[in-house]
């Protein structure tokens, strides 16, 4: 390779280096500042909120014909356990979507939807004391879905 050709190739690589590096950093910054979450683009909000002694959780409860309430426990693997983050949007979903999702959660939990009268989405507020013990201080049914 002649010196001229080599220099031209080096210059071209310098341009690639700048474009790729600066472009990637700019995209990361814009996504972080905008709050966009479209994996793998993320705003990198890892533990970014302040925790207090009060925590709020959502859980599904299956209600049988005799009024017995059974927690709907999805499988513990990461793929299924993280579907519970969709509970927060369940109350605002269309009825057919609510029904389909609740039936899916019941099935993965090993509960026959036909044996359930209704499913309650329960919001539970807990307070943790300085020893780490958690106490329920409030509980309300956010929405009810008939599977």
């Amino acid at each position, binding site marked *: 390779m002649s010196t001229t050709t080599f220099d031209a190739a080096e210059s071209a*690589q*310098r341009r690639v*280096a700048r474009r790729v590096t600066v472009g990637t*950093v700019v995209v990361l910054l814009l996504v972080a500042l905008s709050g966009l979450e479209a*994996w793998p683009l993320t705003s990198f909000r*890892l533990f*970014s909120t302040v*925790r207090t002694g009060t925590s709020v959780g959502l859980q599904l409860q299956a209600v049988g014909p005799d009024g017995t309430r059974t927690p709907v426990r999805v499988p513990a693997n990461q793929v299924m356990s993280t579907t519970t*983050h969709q509970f927060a949007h369940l109350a605002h979903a269309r009825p057919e979507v609510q029904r389909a999702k609740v039936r*899916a959660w019941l099935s993965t939990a090993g509960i026959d939807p036909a044996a359930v009268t209704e499913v309650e989405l329960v919001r539970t507020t807990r307070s943790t004391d300085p020893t780490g013990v958690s106490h329920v201080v409030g509980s309300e049914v956010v929405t009810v879905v008939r599977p």
Partner: protein
Amino acid sequence: MRGLVARVDGALTAPGPWFRLVEVQTLLALVIGWRLLTRDWTLIADRPAVLTQHLNVMAWYPGAPPAWLLVALQVLGIAAVVAVVARRRPRVAFLVAWLVYVALCAWWGASGKVMHNDVLTVTVAFPLLFARPPARGETGSTVAWGWPPRAALVVMASVYFLTGLQKLRHSGLHWVFGDNMAWILRQGAVDRAAGLASFVADHAWLAQGMAGGALALELTAPLWLAIRRTRALFAAAALLMHSSIWLLLGIDYSPWILTVAAVAVPMSLRADRPLFARSRVPSPAASPARELA
């Protein structure tokens, strides 16, 4: 300011030795291969389609992928990693491995919660997709082999910095100097570390020290990674931070630990010193740009 920009540009675009790009690309490929190998990707197929969210790069795929496709992709990705390690068409092989990894991780995380476990690996490997690795037998030093590992360092520094910035942006210094870390430990500790987590939570100086240390490490990552002699220290500090998160809270950030090591450790060596050499390569003439390589 112009002087600083020129210096940074000079450091990024200086020639680099052929073996450094090979080392970083190979090590990142091995991280990807390890993740592909050690997960049961067929769990994705068990998730009902109605519970699959589509806010990710695989949103174009209709429904849920079948188990056979997931296994086929896993095998393809691992084969691509082997090809990178064996230096058989490493550029194409690295691209294939990365694409498979991104697809499988996107599907894995399509449950409604943003999962960050693999984000650093995906993001740091991205600049290397544009690299032109040396062919078998090619040696020497060129811009083409110098910039990709440095770009990976820049991206890594940016990710850590943004992680810290977001804590400051959304919580301010109360994230460090309030009871935040104490509550994280009290509410999130795994059983094996309940005693240790409780001890740390009960001593404000310890909990705030942990929080402050983590935030400081993230915000100063660009400094650590800009200077050759502190890159290995950053890798050690990241190991300590992510390991303590795993120990106390059970959250797996091992891909982050390995990705930092894959890039920062080779890049902490002098430009004339390969990572796995038995004898040193003759030292080129020293220059500021090469010292930062």
